[in-house]
């Protein structure tokens, strides 16, 4: 059985950044990445962006590593293979082709998968999800022959897909289960601001709506809603969330919840096993709770820290997570922990004309998160204030004043 010093399961940004970091620490030790996609590292964040979708930038810009990077750095990329079993006592991982690999140190950077629709007719052709490069390739091909599209779900994927489809001049209907966009993460006012922008961009929005059934033969012809209204369509893009593929670790003794549970050093509950990226449910030292995040910055930083710890460091993972997107003439930014909770106080920070609308979430007087519509100028200060844990309980009036510079609180 081949023995690998540093075995990484997952070839996305967390796993690849980890391999790169390991090489900086240990130029000699054998290192392999197992990826269930048949590709080298690409920019998953770019997949949902209109410039990529509409082929306004060269396709090859998607690659973040050249093929020879792996060779030059002596990193074995085992692409198109899936890990199917983990034995933490014998320290082995088995792949779907039957190969067994022994490891000294193991990193689980298996990311997240899209949640699939489970309604009648969901198996028909021209229903798309967006997670992988292959998913994106299929959508890019279909967009060229589409007149009408339906987008399911109000989140980042739904927003960005609406933008791309409208730029491609396709009629778009967005179907939301909730009463407003991004409920309950965003309040009604923020959600409506996004919806006004979408509607200005000629996206039709249906609220409180559930699809009962997909209609058509082998291919999609429309959807029937629960109120029996039928909407014809050529394609459907479904963005209803993600889950972490952790079932293959069952029986390994590794503690899992929604993701792979780790401590603040990103170490899992078995010796010499770490986790990083979307699939890690880590102990957040800033929030003092177990959390799991699905974004690029977090995955990249976790890959770095986990790798340093695999090489013998004892470094806590510490990050304030953020995500920004734009489209339809607005920007949407989330920072820190934005989950609403009764113990969190929300300060509204908005301009008089209503164009800028921010919500600052405080817990025990400390800033823990923020949602900003057209307010990315505040993002950097907010992230630093979250990081520092400054007591702002006496500063609510200033936080609420959009002309007050948050940088002065630093």
């Amino acid at each position, binding site marked *: 059985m081949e023995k690998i010093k540093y075995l990484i399961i997952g070839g996305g*940004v967390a796993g690849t950044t980890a391999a790169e970091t390991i090489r900086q620490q240990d130029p000699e030790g054998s290192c392999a990445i197992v990826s269930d996609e048949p590709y080298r590292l690409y*920019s*998953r*964040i*770019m997949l949902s*962006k209109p*410039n990529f979708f509409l082929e*306004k*930038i060269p396709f090859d*810009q998607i690659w*973040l590593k050249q093929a020879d990077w792996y060779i030059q750095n002596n990193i074995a990329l085992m692409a198109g293979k899936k890990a199917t079993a983990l034995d933490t006592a014998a320290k082995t991982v088995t792949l779907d082709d039957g190969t067994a690999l022994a490891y000294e140190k193991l990193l689980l950077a298996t990311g997240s998968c899209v949640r699939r629709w489970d309604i009648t007719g969901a198996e028909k052709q021209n229903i798309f999800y967006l997670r992988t490069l292959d998913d994106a390739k299929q959508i890019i091909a279909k967009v060229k022959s589409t007149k009408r599209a339906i987008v399911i779900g109000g989140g980042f994927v739904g927003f960005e897909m609406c933008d791309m489809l409208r730029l491609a001049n396709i009629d778009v209907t967005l179907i939301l289960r909730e009463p407003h966009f991004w409920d309950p993460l965003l309040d009604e006012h923020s959600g409506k601001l996004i919806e006004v922008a979408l509607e200005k961009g000629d996206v039709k929005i249906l609220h409180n709506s559930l699809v009962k059934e997909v209609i058509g033969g082998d291919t999609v012809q429309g959807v029937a809603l629960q109120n029996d209204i039928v909407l014809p369509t050529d394609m459907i893009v479904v963005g209803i969330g993600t889950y972490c593929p952790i079932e293959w670790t069952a029986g390994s003794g590794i503690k899992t919840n929604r993701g792979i549970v780790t401590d603040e050093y990103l170490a899992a509950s078995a010796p010499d096993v770490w986790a990083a990226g979307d699939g890690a449910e880590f102990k957040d030292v800033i929030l003092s709770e177990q959390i799991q995040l699905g974004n*690029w*910055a977090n995955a*990249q930083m976790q890959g770095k820290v986990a790798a340093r710890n695999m090489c013998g460091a004892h470094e806590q993972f510490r990050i304030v997570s*953020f*995500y*920004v*997107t*734009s489209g339809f003439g607005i*920007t949407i*930014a989330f920072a820190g922990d934005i989950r609403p909770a009764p113990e969190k106080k929300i300060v509204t920070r908005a301009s008089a004309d209503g164009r800028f609308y921010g919500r600052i979430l405080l817990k025990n007087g400390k800033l823990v998160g923020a949602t900003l519509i057209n307010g*990315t*100028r505040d*993002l*950097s200060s907010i*992230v630093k204030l979250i990081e520092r844990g400054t007591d702002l309980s006496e500063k609510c009036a200033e936080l609420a004043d959009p002309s007050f510079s948050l940088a002065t609180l630093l």
Partner: protein
Amino acid sequence: MAKIKKIVVDRNLCIGAASCVLTADTVFELDAENKAIIKLKGGVKSAEPAEKTALEDDAASDNTLLTAAQSCPTRAILLYDEDGKQVYPS
């Protein structure tokens, strides 16, 4: 690492993910189109390539600039050395 002389943001590639802003907010910010621009001396902001000497003094070390460029999820930040050679992406 070679000394960094010039910083370029490719606006076609920039998606406004803000990772450069969070790494080096003395150098980068997002403009009204949600694209990264470069902060120069005296509060001037530029979407054009910038010489490092045009930044505020001590705005960022070469290491911080490299970290900012590496954090970009679309590799939209390009760094050049004194010989005009591209330092990142390498």
